[in-house]
């Protein structure tokens, strides 16, 4: 849930919240994301389709992982405060993977409307491989 205001008031460069894990991931989660996002690419819920394309099974949408990372980020810094959210897709993510989301404050800039907080975010697999590398900005009102 959203971090207490006292925590946000204490934010400094280097501040880092407790990481959060998601998973083990299931095909149902991929299907749920397909419907929620409107991207019905069968590669993410039809094993026959995925195997015919040369993959061992279906795999998670990159944007599904990005959405989990967005949950981590907005629980930390506030859903209404997001101003920029960038993701770079790296490793693929498979059923039964466990993802761990983490983040760190890289810069804080005082602006008239509030503090602009820049963060680095990461969504890593249980292997340690990074599935999503992300940067984001949140404007925390005074």
């Amino acid at each position, binding site marked *: 849930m959203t971090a207490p205001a006292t925590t946000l008031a204490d934010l400094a460069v280097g501040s880092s919240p407790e990481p959060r894990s998601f998973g083990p991931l299931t095909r149902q989660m991929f299907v*749920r994301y397909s419907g929620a*996002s409107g991207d019905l*690419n*069968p590669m993410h819920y039809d094993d026959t389709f995925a195997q015919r394309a040369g993959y061992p099974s279906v795999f998670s949408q990159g*944007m599904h992982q990005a*959405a989990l990372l967005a949950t981590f*980020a907005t629980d930390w810094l506030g859903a209404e405060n997001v*101003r*920029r959210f960038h993701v770079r897709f790296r490793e693929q993510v498979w059923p039964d993977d466990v993802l761990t989301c983490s983040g760190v404050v890289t810069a804080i800039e005082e602006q008239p409307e509030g503090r602009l907080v820049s963060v680095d975010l990461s969504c890593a697999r249980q292997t340690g491989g990074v599935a999503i590398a992300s940067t984001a900005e949140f404007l925390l009102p005074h």
Partner: protein
Amino acid sequence: MSAPSEAGAAWEFPIERGKIREFALAMQSEAPEYLAPDAVVPPTFLINANRWAPEGARVPHGFDRRRLLHGEQEYIFHGPPPRAGQTLYAAERLAERYEKPGRRGGTMKFAVIVTEFRDEAGTLIAEGRATYIETAKATKTAEPTKTTEPTRTAEPAKTAEPASAAQPATAAQPAPGTEEKA
């Protein structure tokens, strides 16, 4: 590198509370900000606009689908994120094209397509920036019917895990949006 000139027609994209709740469930969020009657959109929610683009409104990246990857995605909000009940108008434009040498020869091509989200007054509320990549060598396709054998693992996978042996070595995701071709 062609000049960034292409732009598509705008389409209506109403921000709906039920869709936000559905998206919050898929992102495993319990944040009250996504459940309220005036829920704000989650950071990546605007991907939903793609589903409702009318025929011809999407700006083509022009890449070979067998070598196509979705490399990066970004959302920029020019103020608080939009809320349920607002109606936005989405329109795509080609922002940038560039090339880089592939790690093992050939050329990687990049296209950045921006979706602009404006309100009824025409004010720019948010932008989505998608970076598409055409790899230098063929990777796997999202369309099995077109898969030809050389597309498979043109480069060795980076991790030791067996499942990853089938991954394209280029670190990115197969691009979405093949639903009609399934």
